[in-house]
């Protein structure tokens, strides 16, 4: 039986308690709102993109521990990266959380803390919300909702 500790790892609990980059961003070039109507998780993501590099990022909103920690971890992971790199990371992250639990997945550093959601299928959407919001923000500049 999958253990609760696989889901609520210390890294996740820490990012839930003290989310990083948890603020709005003045002068953001990209912004999108993510909403999961199933559980009411809601977040707004702000990006400052200069010359194809995500130079700053922030998010606000409310949600479960998994969605909040995932958003926090994501903002840390993409800050300073190129847009192309961030998108590639989304693909790898998506692969990680949708791979069957018994199959080995690549190590994504701190993001690997979220690999535990594979054992909890209804929670995969919680972990993915921030990333889908990122994609929405990048693909269409300005306000957007996923």
């Amino acid at each position, binding site marked *: *039986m999958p253990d*609760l500790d696989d*889901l*609520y790892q210390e890294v996740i*609990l820490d990012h*839930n*308690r003290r989310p990083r980059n948890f603020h709005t961003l003045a002068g953001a070039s990209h912004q999108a709102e993510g909403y999961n*109507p*199933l*559980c*009411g*998780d*809601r977040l707004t993501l702000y990006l400052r993109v200069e010359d194809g590099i995500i130079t700053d990022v922030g998010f606000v909103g*409310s*949600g*479960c*521990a*998994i969605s909040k920690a995932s958003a926090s971890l994501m903002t840390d992971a993409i800050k300073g990266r190129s847009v192309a790199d961030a998108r590639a990371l989304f693909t790898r992250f998506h692969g990680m959380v949708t791979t069957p639990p018994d199959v080995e997945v690549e190590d994504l550093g701190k993001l690997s803390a979220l690999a535990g959601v594979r054992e*909890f299928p*209804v*929670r995969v959407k*919680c972990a993915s919300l921030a990333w889908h919001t990122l994609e929405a923000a990048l693909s269409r500049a300005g306000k957007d909702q996923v």
Partner: protein
Amino acid sequence: MTTVAGGQIAPAAAGLPVVPGTPTLPFDVERVRADFPILRRTVRGKPLVYLDNAATTQKPQAVIDALTAYYTGINANVHRGVHELSERATEAYEAARARVQAFFHAAHAHEVVFTRNATESINLVARSFARPRLQPGDEVLITAMEHHSNIVPWQLACEATGATIRVAPIDDRGALIVDEFARLLGPRTVIAAVSHMSNALGTVNPAAEIVALAHRHGVPVLLDGSQAAYHMAVDVQALDCDFYVATGHKLYGPTGIGVLVGKTEHLEAMPPFLGGGDMIRSVSFERSTWNDLPYKFEAGTPNIAGAVGLHAALDYLGAAGFEAVAAHERDLLAYGTAALQDVPGLRIIGTAPSKASILSFVIDGMHPHDIGTIVDREGVAVRTGHHCAQPVMERFGIPATARASLAMYNTRADLDALVGALHRVREVLG
């Protein structure tokens, strides 16, 4: 054909004659639990603590047996063949209708229409009753505590006709503000659609008072009994409501069978909802004529087994006796309300003076979704989310709640298990 649980229920509770000299037994929850086979299973290695009854209730053996008996010995299509099985199936189906009539105290069996669920029943009324009457500027009156199924069908009817929806507010406890409801009734109100009992808050509305107020303005009333019907006795004639809807799977019956109970005068005047076989008297390529009530509203092969299962469920509920069931659930609600106070930071959403069988709550700093996942690991099944009542969540300024909802087979031990599991949530989330 249907099995009654009378032998397993205390005679007094079952409303059966008590033989002089036999002690009157109180409601025996352990004997009731023994009738529900699923309660014997474990979940994640722990005994199942099922507290998601507002979503669907579990089924007694009598219902499961009735379904098996129907498919084993009777199965045929209804209202068609002259052969033995078809006659037997038709008898069973119509006997189920008569049982529903008796259960809701409807004036006639033809006032009972079988549908798939309460949602379909509401859609039927919205489409066949409201829509032909609605003019631009007309109004449909609902309340702020409605389930999406008692909002969206009216929105569709209003969008198609240029009518608007008015919403009677609720107070901070989740009780309907009846004066505001009365104020919103007017010459443009075509119908009022009101929950008898809220699925998200547990509030029990003063249904008879609401109907009387509306009728004073000549406004017909639909009562959504999805939640009320399995917690309290419902008498549609005493309530004088124009339509009452309920769903079988919350009445300890099978999924896929629902009911609409409507006054004859309305049902007669309404055009059909769906077209097909069984709902017609004659068909030619030029025109068709409609069948009598209730068949006019039952196009196609109905859920015969579902109706038979519902019959058994209503027999079971009838034998248990609403007075005894309601008293037991009142005790659990009071016990659970007090027990939850033991959980730091917990706040109950829905504290109306008149409420039943629902404990909706939030805990400071803990999202309902995390609560649901963690208590599930302890074998405790609760619902988390907006409960198909997003406007209710908005009213209370919260995205979601966790909800424990009670049925006749729940025990104080179930609520103790819930509280224990909630303490575990704090341990895990720290």
